[in-house]
């Protein structure tokens, strides 16, 4: 039995994982989600912003991180539109452009937010460092038009926004090292307040910045997205995916325990 377990075909594990995903998704299980301190910190910061404030939202991710980061973006946008906080969105990643524009338009349509009045999508410009530094001097010097080709001078929301001085918070939704670039250049050089929502892979790298206060809040992977949805009282993909995730994690933990027991028992027998 144990020998069979150790030499089990890996495809059986794939089938078990697939079942652990499909069954909870079809049954639609709802497990409780508590809120971690970093997510609460970001939520509280945005909640404390007065009406008419502006946040900058950087969609620095591509399709491979879409499942983790788009629920965060949706929840955050809904919170901003509900509170009349202006959103200046942009991306430093080329394949984030279409994802960002589609997502913003979808949430804006749901919340009746007006393009140019409640939000602006600047689009993409290549060169991460140069874009971040350039916007610190003047946003218009990097983005002369928005994503749809409208001159920034003609956009009502951008009338009083010249550079980071008029931005109350930057939230970077990142799947690579862009958050570090925002901290190194925008926070250090221009004192821009920064928060982040990052993929699970990157969470551990972000905690030192959170501890020092260089980050004003952090959403950690799909768990952070679910927590934020919980805070803004929206039931969406974040909550759904974290519930399914819990079942897969239970399966993985069980497989790790069984695999270790089988391995060590077999080794003991061989000795």
């Amino acid at each position, binding site marked *: 039995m144990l020998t069979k377990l150790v030499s089990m075909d890996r495809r059986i594990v794939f089938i078990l994982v697939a079942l652990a995903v499909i069954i909870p998704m079809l049954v639609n299980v709802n497990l409780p989600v508590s809120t971690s301190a970093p997510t609460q910190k970001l939520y509280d910061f945005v909640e404390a912003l007065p009406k008419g404030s502006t946040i900058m939202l950087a969609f620095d991710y591509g399709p491979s991180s879409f499942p983790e980061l788009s629920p965060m973006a949706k929840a955050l946008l809904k919170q901003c539109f509900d509170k009349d906080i202006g959103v200046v969105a942009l991306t430093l990643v080329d394949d984030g452009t279409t994802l960002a524009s589609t997502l913003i338009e979808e949430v804006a349509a749901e919340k009746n937010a007006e393009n140019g009045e409640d939000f602006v999508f600047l689009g993409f410009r290549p*060169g991460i460092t140069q874009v971040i530094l350039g916007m610190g001097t003047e946003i218009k010097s990097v983005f002369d038009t928005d994503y749809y080709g409208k001159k920034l001078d003609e956009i009502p929301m951008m009338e009083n926004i010249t550079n980071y001085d008029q931005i109350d918070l930057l939230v970077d939704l990142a799947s690579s090292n862009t958050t*570090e670039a925002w901290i190194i250049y925008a926070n250090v050089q221009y004192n821009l307040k920064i928060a982040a929502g990052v993929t699970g892979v990157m969470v*551990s790298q972000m905690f030192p910045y959170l501890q020092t206060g260089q980050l004003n809040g952090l959403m950690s992977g799909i768990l952070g997205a679910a927590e934020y949805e919980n805070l803004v009282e929206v039931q969406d993909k974040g909550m759904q995916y974290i519930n399914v995730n819990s079942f897969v994690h239970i399966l993985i933990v069980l497989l790790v325990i069984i695999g270790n027991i089988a391995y060590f028992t077999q080794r003991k027998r061989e000795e």
Partner: protein
Amino acid sequence: MQVFGIWVAAFLTLCIYSFLYQDNPLYRFAEHLFVGISVGYGIVLSIHEGFIPLAWNPIWASLTGDSLSGLWKLIPIFFGLLFFARLSPRHTWLIRYPIAILIGFGAGIAIPNVLRANIFEQTRGTIEPFSVIHSQTTGTAVEVMPSGEFTVFIIGAVLMVIGVICTLTYFFFSVEHRGPISWLSKVGICFLMVGFGSAFGNTVMGRVTLLIQRVDFLLNTWIGSIF
């Protein structure tokens, strides 16, 4: 058209997941298609969102209008084009100029900012909790922590300093790792392992989420579009 897009996405998703059974031509077709489309999309977007608005438009406006201010963009374009000197063996040496500019700019702009963000601020973050502990114990703190929370705070601060010192010792190779140094570096390894474990756990969560999203797409969007 939208239904067609859903079917294409579903077909390509199944092609990629077919690799879980074994390598096959359908998987390789989807993989190559993905790489080709990503590169093509990146190039087109860089031209449309980078070269045209930041280089072409100002130069064209200078040539057709009254102001010649956009012509200064020719200088960086010229240095950028020198990268192509690599294609000619006789002129390869010219590539040193754009590389020198990039390194000079990169180092000049990065070194002070990186030092502040990653060294000075992190050092401050490691030491600062002790000033909080001092203010709490001497009664000079503005906000007094509850005793339970304060105990956890002290343990966290001490653990952080031990972790920093021991982990740095592990990477300090100028002294032979024997005696107390060896013990410190071994404790450093423990902290590193905790860090790697945390990173791995989070990575598993992220990768499983990708799978969940694709299954969600296949079950609800694709099969949902059929029935």
